[in-house]
């Protein structure tokens, strides 16, 4: 019987086709029955005369020759978390694509993926990319493979080096694995963990980043990943520098696996003129450690800790290939869209697999607890902007769902490996990994300084991959028709704050804050379903959250009784992995005033934009193989964007402190 099944399965896979050809349709024909949506902006009634100098330059982005920054900001899409062969684990997984390949792929060039031999290319190139290879043994393995490299010469009598250079593949892999084990067990090999070696490989890494920086066209950063993972609990942070010199040495988990020590390093670097910050990721795999109410010694968070954390960690990843960290259905039971890309559950490297704790492992909870700390301690440790990342160990930022080729070297480099269940990384099946997310930055121009500063002031948002454009502003007195004004952005900046900002002090006359949001679809992805504003606040010592649908496509209205919104529908043809943009809108906008505002509560607001359902990458792969989409993961997903928040801090005179803050003051939990 088994033979029978094997023959049958083999015969099913006879006709493999390329899925790249089956991309969903793009330019939608005008919809026959699209009713004007109330949520969408209305046309400007009267043409307005601009009060700025007239002529083309006043109404658009500046031209090339001018080199003028745009004070109203442009959006720049890019990557802030990526590994090449210079990361030891990527190398051990078979990746031989170099940092050059990684940058050139992000710039839009077609590159040969070494693990599959196929040419890979982005449909829409990125504007910037930071390569964040692991600081631990950064760039060491590729040098050891080359017998003529400086490093090989230095260490030619070391048996691990001899194994690598023996030409025996098995011995080589054994040696790579030995080195990679040191990485996750925090057990450095003294032969490699030497300052002279690290300094030399790190200098090379910095040179490559500088070589690919083309101001105005493509931005890179000097960056690395600090890979702290105490007892399989992920505390990883990426570290970024503003200048082109950067530090002499990166800071690795071998130096210390405590975040507080990383902050000391960052503070020292800033003191030496290298402005820098850290971005944590995969809170979802931290077993409740990432946003825990205690420090590394188990002591409750105090004001000093909170202040240092906020200064050193300006943003966090909301999604990447190892799952999303927005929220978990258990934390947000009333959020019907919470169960998104959360099938990756196991703490990295646990065997048997251990599912991590949910509490203190998600960004929304941290943002809300953050305003709780603002009330309780007077400082918010979790004042975080939102970014997204790849964390791909291939060199390639594969954010395009229809163009996905795997993220872990040779482990998941072919359709067969991804779909067979054989391709596993750290014990998790390939199908449970998602496509990389994308980071969008609102900056004056495409330079290292401008993008660094934008992330630092949190004028950023993250997406699950598509290049959705999203504006979000908050103020006390925005006009109701703000988004339909053709001076929208100018007026929004003039009268309020963009995403990542703090609402100004509440004026005496004001009743509630008003938010303006405008989202535009990715021209190569699905239409938009809805725009939501997620509000979190603290009340009587407890965190609270509520989700408001502020703009709906296709003229939908919430049910007046239940408040429920009818679903947008689903046009996905699962068998053929296609969809049509006959539902949803290409853009959605709203000016929304908080109807439940209480001026005595600390609050945080952020936007979530949902696309209409489109096929997940595994559905495209299944189509390629001519099989049913795999069980255990969704066949269709609603891709999305999450903005950085806007915060409200009440006048201290209005605040009534609670007697207890059970979620914030816990030594043991």
């Amino acid at each position, binding site marked *: 019987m088994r*033979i*029978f099944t*094997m*023959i*049958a399965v*083999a*015969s099913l896979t*006879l*006709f493999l086709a*390329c899925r790249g*050809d089956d991309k969903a349709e*793009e330019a*939608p*024909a*005008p*919809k*026959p029955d*699209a009713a*004007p*949506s109330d949520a*969408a*902006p209305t046309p400007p009634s009267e*043409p307005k005369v*601009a009060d700025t100098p007239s002529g*083309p330059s006043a*109404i*658009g*982005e*500046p*031209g090339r020759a001018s080199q003028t920054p745009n004070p109203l900001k442009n959006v720049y*899409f890019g990557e802030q978390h990526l590994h090449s062969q210079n990361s030891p684990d990527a190398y*051990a997984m078979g990746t031989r694509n170099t940092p050059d390949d990684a940058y050139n792929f992000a710039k*839009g060039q077609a590159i040969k993926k070494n693990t599959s*031999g196929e040419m890979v290319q982005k*449909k829409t*190139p990125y*504007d910037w990319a930071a390569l964040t290879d692991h600081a631990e043994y950064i760039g060491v393995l590729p040098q050891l493979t080359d017998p003529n490299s400086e490093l090989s010469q230095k260490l030619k009598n070391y048996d691990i080096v001899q194994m690598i250079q023996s030409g025996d593949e*098995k011995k080589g892999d*054994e040696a790579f*694995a*030995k080195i*990679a*084990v040191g990485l*996750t*067990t925090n057990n450095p090999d003294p032969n490699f963990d030497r300052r002279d070696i690290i300094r030399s490989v790190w200098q090379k890494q910095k040179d490559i980043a500088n070589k690919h920086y083309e101001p105005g066209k493509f931005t890179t950063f000097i960056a690395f990943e600090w890979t702290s993972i105490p007892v399989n609990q992920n505390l990883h942070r990426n570290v970024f520098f503003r200048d082109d010199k950067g530090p002499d040495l990166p800071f690795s988990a071998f130096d210390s696996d405590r975040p507080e020590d990383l902050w000391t390093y960052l503070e020292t670097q800033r003191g030496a003129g290298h402005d820098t910050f850290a971005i944590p990721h995969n809170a979802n795999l931290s077993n409740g450690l990432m946003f825990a109410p205690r420090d590394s010694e188990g002591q409750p968070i105090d004001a000093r800790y909170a202040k240092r954390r906020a200064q050193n960690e300006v943003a966090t990843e909301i999604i990447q290939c190892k799952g999303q960290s927005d929220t978990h259905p258990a934390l947000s039971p009333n959020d019907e869209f919470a169960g998104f890309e959360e099938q990756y559950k196991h703490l990295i*490297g646990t*065997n048997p697999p251990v599912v991590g704790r949910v509490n203190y492992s998600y960004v929304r909870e941290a943002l809300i607890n953050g305003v709780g700390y603002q009330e309780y301690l007077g400082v918010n440790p979790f004042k975080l902007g939102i970014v997204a990342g790849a964390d791909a160990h291939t060199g390639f930022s594969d954010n395009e769902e229809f163009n996905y080729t795997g993220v872990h070297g040779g482990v998941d480099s072919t359709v*067969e490996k991804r779909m067979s269940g054989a391709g596993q990384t750290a*014990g998790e099946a390939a199908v449970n990994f998602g496509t990389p997310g994308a980071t969008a930055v609102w900056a004056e121009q495409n330079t290292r300084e401008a993008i660094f500063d934008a992330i630092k002031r949190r004028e950023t948002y993250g997406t699950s991959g598509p290049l959705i454009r999203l*504006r979000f502003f908050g103020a006390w007195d925005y006009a109701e028709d703000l988004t*339909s004004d*053709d001076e929208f952005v100018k007026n929004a900046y003039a009268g309020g704050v963009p995403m990542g900002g703090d609402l100004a002090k509440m004026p005496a006359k004001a009743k509630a804050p008003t938010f303006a949001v405008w989202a*535009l*679809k*990715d*021209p*190569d992805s699905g239409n938009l379903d809805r725009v939501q504003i997620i509000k979190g606040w603290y009340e009587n010592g407890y965190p609270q959250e509520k989700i408001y649908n502020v703009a709906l*496509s*296709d003229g939908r209205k919430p049910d007046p009784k239940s408040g429920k919104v009818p679903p947008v529908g689903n046009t996905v043809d699962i068998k053929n992995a296609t969809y049509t943009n006959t539902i949803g809108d*290409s853009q959605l906008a709203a000016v929304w005033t908080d109807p439940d505002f209480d001026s005595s509560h600390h609050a945080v607001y952020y936007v979530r934009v949902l696309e209409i359902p489109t096929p997940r990458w595994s559905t495209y792969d299944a189509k390629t193989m001519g099989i049913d989409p795999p069980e255990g993961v969704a066949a269709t997903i609603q891709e999305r964007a999450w903005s950085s928040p806007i915060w409200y801090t009440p006048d201290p005179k209005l605040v009534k402190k609670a007697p207890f803050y059970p979620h914030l003051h816990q030594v043991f939990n």
Partner: protein
Amino acid sequence: MSERLSRLLREPLFHFLILGLLIYGGYAWLHSGDAPDDEETITVGAGELAWLRTSFEKRWKRTPTPAELNGLIDEYVRETVLYREALAMGLDRDDTIVRRRLAQKLEFLVQDLVEVSPPTEEELEAYFEAHREDYREPDLVTFSHVFVDPDRRGEQTLQDAAAIREALEQLEDPAQGAKKLGDPFMLQSYYPERNEAEISKLFGGEFAERVGELSEGVWHGPVLSGYGVHVVYVHSKQSFPQPSLAEVRERVLNDWTTAKRKELDDEYVARLREKYDVVIEDAEETQSAKQAERSP
């Protein structure tokens, strides 16, 4: 009953089963009594053990316990048994994945073997001449556009776009007009000096391609994008002179090497192919099979 039987006989899976039994039976008959010792011995030596340990460490980042190692050995033996049986039954034949994997292995091997010696100056120049267009800076377009929103206008969209275009044609300053007519849109209405790739990032590929083809100084439309419908005015286009070989030498050299390598690879496969007679029996079927093969 007879209907059920005939349905069963038509069932492809049934054919597979029969085929499997035939292969198995044939094998058993051919090899009855032979089976030399080494074919029935599975040795787990020091090399295999080290390999199993390493694979485990690679995945779990620690050494296996003795119990786990025993498990790994059991699994290895089981896999080897199945592998040998499958080979013996010929299951590796006519399996797309196995075929492709083996072909790929040889391809990789060939790629490593083929040595490309550096080109002569003449070869490089000839290549550059043949691909001149690839090295020219892309054209820059300065354009304004008016967005006509299908979500708002429904069936009227194309008609409205035509009316808007007529109104725009009456205006003296096209750039100002772009701001006054049409529907609210998040992107700018005016973009100076953008190349096709940049326009594509903003509006999608089809729109970018189309804008590159439009003539200057008149309103065009409707032009479709991933967002909806646009009426477009091209203010100016800028083309760049052809660079000399010296200016782009490194790129040309890279491209030449890549092309040469591919040429040598293809030559190698062509030489191998000469050893074979290719017989194509049914023209129609072959045609479709070829098409299926062609998709990369």
